[in-house]
């Protein structure tokens, strides 16, 4: 098969939209702190997952279940239940990050295929071999800090599949190791499944525009008509050394669409689209475009023709090819 497209589904209707738009696989999570997109109103109940898997399989697509937060010491029941529910639903794989959850899955659910979440931040042959040998992990979702050349080298040194993010929101820190949200709100993607949780977010309008506050900290201010963004701390504007700037990272989103062929050549098995919190219309549009591009590459069409297919794909705001084309300041 050609390169696999792994697409986001925050709700059952987004799952159906992604499958109908041509996703080879869909990833989703349960409605609790076991997955790293634990936003209010999002995600699946165990029954909805059963129905979603049935729908995806009937259309020839797979379902990967993200159980990718770090379990609480002495309170692992939610993670154990999530693994059992994923297996009962017939999920094709689970995406895990925590050692205890990986161990529990390998011991008690030997038939579940294990993928290593980007949250585990495994980027060296040694780390990857540890997860593969110890728990039987079959695929690694790679941290978004590697260049295409580094991915090619890594793939030559490991014997598991790799999956690379190609489109959507971007975590500029090494995943799983960022404490900005914990510092400001006491909640983090690693433990509670959400960065900069919405109950801590407030937008206030005044004569100068809109101020964005996270847990009482003003992290940005937008003039009328200026593009805003979801207020994750890493993309806030701060004053340091007398200068106002995006201190950690510009508010850009990832678009590595032009690198699909290069990533395939570097040995990547699957391409991942970010956006479980995005609407089904958006998901369907992005999936349809990427599917057409993947097929055009398979059919040996030229780079110009593939580029034309992808030209309409803009997420709003500014985009970057991230670390794939090495350009760190």
């Amino acid at each position: 098969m050609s390169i696999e497209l792994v697409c986001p589904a925050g709700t059952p209707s987004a799952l159906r939209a992604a499958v109908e738009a041509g996703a080879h696989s869909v990833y989703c999570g349960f409605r609790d702190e076991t997955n790293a997109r634990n936003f209010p109103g999002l995600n699946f109940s165990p029954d909805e997952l059963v129905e979603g898997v049935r729908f995806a399989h009937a259309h020839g697509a797979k379902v990967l279940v993200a159980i990718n937060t770090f379990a609480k010491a002495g309170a692992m029941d939610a993670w154990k239940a999530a693994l059992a529910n994923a297996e009962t639903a017939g999920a094709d794989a689970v995406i895990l990050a925590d050692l205890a959850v990986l161990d529990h899955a390998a011991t008690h659910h030997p038939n579940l295929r294990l993928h290593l979440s980007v949250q585990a931040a495994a980027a060296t042959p040694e780390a990857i071999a540890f997860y593969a040998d110890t728990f039987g992990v079959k695929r690694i979702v790679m941290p978004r800090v590697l260049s295409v050349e580094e991915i090619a080298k890594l793939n030559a040194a490991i014997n598991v599949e790799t999956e690379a993010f190609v489109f959507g929101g971007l975590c500029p820190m090494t995943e799983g190791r960022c404490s900005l949200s914990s510092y400001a709100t006491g909640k983090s993607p690693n433990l509670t499944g959400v960065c900069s949780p919405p109950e801590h977010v407030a937008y206030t309008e005044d004569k100068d525009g809109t101020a964005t506050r996270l847990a009482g900290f003003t992290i940005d201010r937008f003039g009328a008509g200026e593009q805003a963004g979801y207020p994750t701390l890493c993309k806030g504007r701060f004053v340091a050394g007398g200068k106002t700037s995006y201190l950690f990272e510009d508010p850009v989103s990832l678009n590595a669409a032009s690198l699909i062929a290069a990533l395939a050549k570097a040995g990547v098995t699957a391409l991942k689209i970010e956006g479980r919190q995005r609407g089904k219309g958006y998901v369907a549009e992005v999936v349809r475009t990427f599917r057409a591009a993947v097929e055009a590459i398979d059919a040996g069409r030229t780079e110009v023709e593939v580029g034309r297919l992808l030209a309409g794909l803009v997420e709003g705001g500014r985009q970057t090819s991230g670390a794939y084309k090495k350009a760190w300041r």
Partner: protein
Amino acid sequence: MAEHFRGELPRLLRLLAAPAGFLPLGPALTLAVRRFARRKPAVFDRLGEYGKCSFLIEPSDLDISFLMVPDGSRAEVKCLRRRASQTADVTVRGPLLVLLGLLDGTFDGDALFFNRAISVSGRTDALVALRNAIEDAELTPADFVGATGGLGRLVDRSVIGGLGLARRFTGSPIPGDPS
């Protein structure tokens, strides 16, 4: 502060819509939401505790606004004259056609907010929950009037077609348009 948004209704249509403030819109919408809650309870499970929050929906191009508490079979919608100063857990403001597009999934709520086609204030978590529940609901115009089968399809086709035309006419943001 008077805000103006892209895609507002022309003045003539606003004047024509003015008498809507005197119609029993609130009770009719309350019935529609409760009927919908009976047919698709999963949507309200998704909202969870946020179903008890109040949402003030203010079409920026009309003189009326709607106060909604989407609490399943106890849901309530009130139609208010704009001048009534009302507080709510969440306020969403924007052109009527854009707000309707949020309901039927034509528009992505995130994109609209980030592009400033709508403005929101209040409890962001409640708004995120409502948006996600609506997003999954696959609401159609027929759901609101309780029409099913062939009649439902007819209602959907005419209302969605009509809204599409109206959006083009008023210059509403185009779905997926980042500008």
